């Protein structure tokens, strides 16, 4: 497939850029390291393979699928049946039909089950892609989120269940556990910190939450995959030495609600590209 070939060569080129950046930084010291990493990040913006996921996702969104052979035309993401434009900028939100606060991934699964006739386990299958195993959910998320690019984040906090999810997410963010005593706040509660050379957003500030949240999903160069916010949370908890966060679980939605709401007012700018 041409897509695979493109990803492979893109990864090789970016890989070379990383090696070059690090080699140069060793020669020039710490200030230069930061400069080189910034230059590397800027170079990434030139072409974003996330477009391949967006195109595949658009096709999935518009094609009849599942046992009932229907498309997502009747799927209401909060802005009316089938409306994708600007929908992601107002998620998560409370959905009366499900009587639950839902993020995008959870809502997609809901539509696949209630409208397309998939079983819950089938709809939840393969949320994160790997080599030779592309995820439909990641592609659908890429397409839907691309339709909010440039739209200001405007996550509602009106319904009692929206308020509850936000309050729970706020608490979960500082919950310490695991072998290492880590919480989200261990790495994401101070400005200007890094893990190794990776900058860490301070998610407890509006500016930090805005910058981070509006740049997910993202094509991850190091993985050759487009990654969603559900993946971002799952992988943070893996590194926190927690057990595995269940896809579309209540905690995943509460944390997403907390971070998305804190990003309100910023223009959504994803799918992005990250190292």
């Amino acid at each position, binding site marked *: 497939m041409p897509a695979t070939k493109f990803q492979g060569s893109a990864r090789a080129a970016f890989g070379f850029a990383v090696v070059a950046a690090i080699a140069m930084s060793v020669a020039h010291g710490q200030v230069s390291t930061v400069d080189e990493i910034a230059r590397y990040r800027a170079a990434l913006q030139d072409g974003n393979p996330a477009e391949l996921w967006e195109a595949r996702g658009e096709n999935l969104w518009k094609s009849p699928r599942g046992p009932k052979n229907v498309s997502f035309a009747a799927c209401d993401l909060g802005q009316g049946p089938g409306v994708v434009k600007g929908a992601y900028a107002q998620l998560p939100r409370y959905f009366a039909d499900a009587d639950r606060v839902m993020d995008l991934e959870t809502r997609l699964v809901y539509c696949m089950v209630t409208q397309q006739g998939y079983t819950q386990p089938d709809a939840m299958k393969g949320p994160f892609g790997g080599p030779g195993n592309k995820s439909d959910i990641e592609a659908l998320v890429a397409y839907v989120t691309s339709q909010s690019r440039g739209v200001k984040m405007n996550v509602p906090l009106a319904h009692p269940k929206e308020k509850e999810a936000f309050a729970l997410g706020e608490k979960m963010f500082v919950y310490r556990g695991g072998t290492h005593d880590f919480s989200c706040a261990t790495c994401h509660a101070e400005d200007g910190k890094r893990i190794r050379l990776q900058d860490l957003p301070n998610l407890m500030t509006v500016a930090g939450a805005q910058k981070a949240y509006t740049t997910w999903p993202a094509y991850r160069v190091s993985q050759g995959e487009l990654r969603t916010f559900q993946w971002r949370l799952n992988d943070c908890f893996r*590194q926190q030495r927690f057990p595995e966060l269940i896809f579309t679980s209540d905690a995943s939605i509460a944390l997403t609600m907390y971070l998305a709401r804190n990003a309100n007012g910023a223009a959504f700018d994803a799918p992005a590209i990250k190292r």
Partner: protein
Amino acid sequence: MRKHFLLWGCAGVIAVAMVGCATAQSDVDVSRQAAAVLKSSFKANGQAGLDRLDQDETQRLCTQYANKALPKDVAEMIEKLNTASIKWPADGKWLGDWKNGERIAQEGRGKQFSDDPKGPVGGNCYACHQLTPQEVSYGTIGPSLYQFAKLRGYTDETRKYAYGKIWNADAYSACSNMPRFGHSQILTEQQIKDLVALLTDPDSPVNK
């Protein structure tokens, strides 16, 4: 006592009328609910079981005071509790091999559900600290440890502090961001001695 009063007060309101209880829901109740929702939102994977979500007293208190100033008496209690947990070396020796220490400081694997349970477990010190000047890829969550003993002296006191701090950071600074490597059985006594050597051996590049 105060917490109990609040809970009973809330229950009383429910008995009379539902109105008002939601807004009067205490911070403690929200925390309790958050912990319960977290526990139903994870699944065991590999070596990471659901028991990792169970908090010990230190984790519980540090969570409770995460967004507030830690009261002095609570901080002292946490430090005392954790000081008592430090297992000092039986042979009275502090220094291992700094070269092994460097490998342990570089190693990021260990204890993640994606890690081989029989594979290496490191301290991943460089994730948060500067150590040797040769390694430029270091994080900044913790302070720079470059010239650790050159600045503090190559003394038993410095070495004992390094050993104790790595074993249980909360003994020195309640609710530290640093894992309790000995206490939580992440690193062995020998690995901690190797890290003490990385920090306090005059031959270690950290002190050059």
